[in-house]
């Protein structure tokens, strides 16, 4: 079991982190959660570890989102903290562009329904149609339809933002 989990860890850790990152949008947190998922798998010894790992990762990410909402009740924003100073250069411009694109994709992803987004992210994490169906409760035959719709809507949402952004820049 441990050997199987170790193999799975080596082959899917990055995919789990990526999957979580697109839900929590924090690289360190995504890695923390991914490691937590694998540690929990050691205790639970699931029959289908791969499907279990993504299912638990999805649950943890969901709880993380809920916690973030509740956290607002308690935490005060430290607006006076000094921002790190950096000198603008070419790599900084690239980074800025990359960050903007990431931001746009995250916003576009948020415009999908929860189910479409889940199916799309699970597919991108390398899960098969039957695995996605098992995790989401959809019929295997419905995964293609859901993916087709999710892809289309993600592109539409992204292109709309891209167009609006360019339009705003030229006006």
């Amino acid at each position, binding site marked *: 079991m441990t050997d199987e989990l170790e193999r799975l860890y*080596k082959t899917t850790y990055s995919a789990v*982190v*990526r999957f979580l990152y697109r839900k929590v949008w924090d690289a360190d947190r995504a890695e923390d959660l991914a490691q937590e998922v694998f540690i929990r798998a050691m*205790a639970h010894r699931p029959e289908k570890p791969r499907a279990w790992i993504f299912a638990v990762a999805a649950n*943890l990410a969901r709880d993380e989102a809920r916690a973030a909402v509740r956290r607002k009740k308690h935490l*005060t924003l430290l607006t006076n903290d000094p921002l790190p100073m950096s000198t603008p250069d070419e790599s900084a411009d690239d980074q800025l562009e*990359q960050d903007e694109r*990431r931001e746009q994709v995250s916003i576009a992803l948020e415009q999908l329904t929860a189910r479409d987004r889940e199916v799309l992210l699970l597919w991108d994490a390398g899960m098969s149609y039957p695995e996605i169906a098992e995790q989401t409760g959809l019929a295997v035959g419905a995964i*293609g339809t859901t993916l087709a719709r999710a892809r289309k809507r993600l592109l539409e949402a*992204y292109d709309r933002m891209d167009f609006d952004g360019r339009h705003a820049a030229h006006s």
Partner: protein
Amino acid sequence: MTEWTSTVGMRHIPEDELHAYLDQALSRSQCVEIECHLARCRHCQRSRDEVAAVRDRITSLLAAASLSRRPSAPPFTELVARHEARVAAARIDWGRVARRGALAAGLVAALATGWLGRSLLFPGSPAESLAAEVPAAPETKSSSVTGLDAGRQLVAMSDVGPLERLANEPDEIERVLPTPAARAEQPRAAAVMPAPATGTLTLQVASFEASDEGPGLTLPGLSQTVDWYQAYSVTGGNLPRIDGLPVVDVQVQPTVGDARPLVVVAQQHPSGRLIKTIEGPEEQVSALVDAQQNAGRFNASTATLTPPDYLVDANGRTRRGLRVAMVTGGLPADTLNALVKTITLRD
């Protein structure tokens, strides 16, 4: 395979099946059927190219929405070690706790016997008047005790139970909580058995109420004051404190289910005042601090997040339980807010 749509007398492949085909999610026979059709249908060839382009763009977009750095997987052995440490921490040696309680109870019984004998021999002695002020010990499984164990102090141990149950039993809380008069006597009882100094992290016998802090933070009833190492074991190594300040007292209160206990660590601030760091499930910390703040007892800092609990519900689904830490005490809120940022949780 579903029935393909028909236009101009020729069936075409539905878009979702093209997605499934390109995702390699179809059976071999389905693939053969689609490939045969594609070979003679330009309309479906165009559709396939469009779907392929959509897939490529989606892959590219999702790649852009990925981490800016490559995930750095720690060695698997590190995760195994963390898992084993967690399992070990979960095994609370309640038998040891009970044995310590029994030892301490025995010491108290011996003291009480001597005290009673002295009061009989010397009626009207200070011991008798002191006994008259102290209310009878509550009828609990292990009553409140004062004792000494292996150079560390097990100051007081009361009955332990879930916070929720207590909330519904106000009379029980009133009965179990020591009265102000009893609290006032605690330093005198502690003075009977002075503690050897064994380092700043070791619990020192001192009562919160012995200082000028007023009644201070009171856990609602069933808490236990434990030594540092015991608390370290019970909490799985998550003991909140502010480095550099002497620890005066550690209280632990079990929580419901798999959640780690609620912990209150009292430390002495350089100003001479006591500050208490409370760490536990968010709802319980908030409820505790709100209730006592409403009573005008002290100021409290903002909350800072601490490692969450991972809980398994009745359906076997895991969820995270949010935990927070707050610093309370008779200091200005700004001072407490500064202190809360310096909390150390683990060694």
